[in-house]
């Protein structure tokens, strides 16, 4: 089968959160999903979002291999799931994410003249009451409060006494995360209603909003905690891999807007019959290799023939051959899976960052471009390497070291070329690559253009979405999520999104009056407010709508006056 997969090159992530914000604007700016970030960027070491989600002793996500060699959901089998259906024992509470809030901006404009500056108080988006902001999706960004928070990072267990949390002495990098669109998704396996499915064409894991009954088992089942409960509609929602976009060949919003241009999207062909076997290998540390072995070489004529026989169209096979993701995973072997030990066979892979090593070299006055220095440092700096191994290879440091060496070799080899010197062939040889390969890897990592980073074949059913609806069609928003009916919020007939957006925009852009639309019931989520409409709840009940007045004082009147005279 074919799977759309992503690779992120962590060395290039600057932690700007652009991906998170654009994703939120595209998908989760609705009531009920205020706390939801399909894409989030966490600083490591750190607690992550939701806090300490990696502690599976606590949250019981993912799969385990039982003593009899069979794969089982960590949180218990089908019977246990049904018995605990009335109250999910392992559901993170909103406090484990964070309580969403907005600010009472009105006090800023309404305040009478005072000696002190008026303050907009934070108001909870859940209760509308005053609240203390104590946590958010990236509260420990850039190691903020690291002694208190990062020190509790579950991956530091066992090495915490050797890790220095003083700001200058520690290491740090960013980890952007989306749903992994796993080959063996435990979210789908946990869903009692069978509402979560993996698309057989491209492997995207989706929640059928019409079949979800809100049992919340998927939230506990996903070890990455990348499936969320919309508390307004009572349904689960997750990253969609921007399927309306990729179906027409566009990259996901997070990739498209990534400032570091560090995301790669491409197809991977894999053998679906071997997925379970790979997920069941005895040792956690073998899972990386096991998963790699499930992927099929798209250059192999036998694979091509089999893919064709399985009904994969020709241009998809062609795309799989050009796939940057496959190249980074299996040809250059620099991409690693995130937490393979959860046994879900995740499909968003990462190139571990060399930067913790390089930074320390540079700070200690060494030549951070020199292969010898870098190699020695990779050996010497155990803490960052061990930490990366806990993230990407279930603790096995050898593959991480190999990747870091390749990245280091690329650095020093390319320095020679950039300085106009002859390339030193012994450098690629020392990491088992040819000069040509190393150069191509460099091209892919550093220079690749848009159409090399994103090789996305368009969906084959000629009923692709109309272009006007691109990126606006969403399984949830198409129900006008957020309207209150007698039957509860979000119920009712689907609202044609494109028409709604189009008409609303037109109305807003041409009208002097605050217009209806963009109605968010009860409370206003300012993230989703475009500044033109006046949704219910924005103003206290009874207050007249604020229409800019033409008479009286104010800049408007002043200008009118001038024009009149």
């Amino acid at each position: 089968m074919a799977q759309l997969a992503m690779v992120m090159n962590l060395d290039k992530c600057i932690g700007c959160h652009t991906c998170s914000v654009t994703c939120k604007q595209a998908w989760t700016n609705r009531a009920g999903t205020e706390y939801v970030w399909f894409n989030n960027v966490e600083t490591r070491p750190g607690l992550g979002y939701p806090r300490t989600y990696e502690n599976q002793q606590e949250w019981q996500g993912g799969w385990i291999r039982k003593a009899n060699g069979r794969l089982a959901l960590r949180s218990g089998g089908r019977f246990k799931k049904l018995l605990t259906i009335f109250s999910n024992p392992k559901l993170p509470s909103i406090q484990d994410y964070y309580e969403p809030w907005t600010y009472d901006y009105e006090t800023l404009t309404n305040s009478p003249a005072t000696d002190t500056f008026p303050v907009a108080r934070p108001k909870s988006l859940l209760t509308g009451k005053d609240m203390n902001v104590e946590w958010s999706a990236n509260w420990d960004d850039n190691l903020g409060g690291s002694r208190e928070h990062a020190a509790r990072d579950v991956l530091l267990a066992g090495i915490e006494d050797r890790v220095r949390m003083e700001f200058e002495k520690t290491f740090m990098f960013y980890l952007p995360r989306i749903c992994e669109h796993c080959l063996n998704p435990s979210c789908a396996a946990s869903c009692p209603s069978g509402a979560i499915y993996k698309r057989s064409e491209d492997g995207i894991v989706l929640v059928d909003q019409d079949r979800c009954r809100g049992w919340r088992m998927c939230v506990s089942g996903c070890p990455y905690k990348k499936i969320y409960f919309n508390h307004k509609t009572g349904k689960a929602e997750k990253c969609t891999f921007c399927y309306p976009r990729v179906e027409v060949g566009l990259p996901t919003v997070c990739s498209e807007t990534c400032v570091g241009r560090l995301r790669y999207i491409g197809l991977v062909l894999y053998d679906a019959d071997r997925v379970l076997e790979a997920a069941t290998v005895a040792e956690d540390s073998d899972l990386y290799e096991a998963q790699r072995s499930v992927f099929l070489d798209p250059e192999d004529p036998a694979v091509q023939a089999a893919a064709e026989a399985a009904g994969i169209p020709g241009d998809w096979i062609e795309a799989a051959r050009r796939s940057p993701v496959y190249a980074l995973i299996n040809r250059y072997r620099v991409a690693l899976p995130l937490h393979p030990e959860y046994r879900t066979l995740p499909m968003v892979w990462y190139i571990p960052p060399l930067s913790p090593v390089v930074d320390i070299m540079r700070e200690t006055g060494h030549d951070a471009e020199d292969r010898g220095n870098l190699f020695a440092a990779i050996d010497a700096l155990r803490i960052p390497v061990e930490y990366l191994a806990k993230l990407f290879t279930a603790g096995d440091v050898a593959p991480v070291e190999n990747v870091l060496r390749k990245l280091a070799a690329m650095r020093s080899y390319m320095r020679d070329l950039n300085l106009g010197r002859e390339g030193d062939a012994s450098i690629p040889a020392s990491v088992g690559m040819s000069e040509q390969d190393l150069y191509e890897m460099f091209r892919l990592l550093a220079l690749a253009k848009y159409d090399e980073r994103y090789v996305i074949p368009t969906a084959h059913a000629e009923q692709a979405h109309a272009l006007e609806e691109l990126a606006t069609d969403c399984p949830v928003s198409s129900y006008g999520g957020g309207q209150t009916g007698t039957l509860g919020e979000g119920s009712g007939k689907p609202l044609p999104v494109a028409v709604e957006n189009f008409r609303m925009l037109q109305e807003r852009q041409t009208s002097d009056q605050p217009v209806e639309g963009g109605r968010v019931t009860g409370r206003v989520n300012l993230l989703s407010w475009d500044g033109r409409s006046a949704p219910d709840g924005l103003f206290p009940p009874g207050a007249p709508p604020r229409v800019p007045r033409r008479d009286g004082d104010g800049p408007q009147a002043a200008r009118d006056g001038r024009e009149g005279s």
Partner: protein
Amino acid sequence: MSLFLWVIFPYLCLAVFVVGHAWRYRYDAFGWTTRSSQLYEDRLLRLGSPLFHFGMLGVVGGHVIGLLIPRSWTDAVGIDEHRYHLGAVIGGLIAGVMALVGLAILVYRRRTVGPVFSATTAMDKVMYLVLTVVITLGMWNTIAGSTLNLGGEYDYREGVSVWYRSFLAFQPDASLMTQAPIGFKLHALAAFALFALWPFTRLVHVFSAPVGYLTRPYIVYRSRDVRPLGTSAARRGWERVGS
């Protein structure tokens, strides 16, 4: 009057129940959910919800036995009146108390936990009210009628149950109900009101109890939706060709 109360009203409610569900399923598959509030609050829910739900399962089971199984059947398998009565009262009391206590905890939680309260709809409140009335009346019947023998002996298996079966067989015999004690009458009427409300409340989630989970494969594969183009149906005469 008795014709209205014991024939027309129940059938009306039944019709609303059936048609309502069909309508809701078609019109509002998206709203068909438990509307769980566990995300907001966990501690009280963990106590109240299983108590209530398991209690209710017991209550429903008890009603199935009491209402649908005629006395001749239980006699035939050799359960005598005393044993049956004992089982029914004890089982009924346990399940009923569980459900009531659970319900009390859940209502208390709804009222006191801020986010949960603000997520409560008007329909929820009506539903809670009717549900409480029905369960309380049912408990009263069990305690007063069967245990304390207030208001004289009444054997529901000869009265209410027979009426109920005649009702389901579409040959309702209203006279059987007119002789029943007031507690049973009120309980039955309230229950029918609840049935009429059912399709319009979150109670619909009862009908999506996921038993299929026990047998289906863990991972579900599905092909890309073959939805018509766009989100609104094509106008007549403007359908796409070749899709």
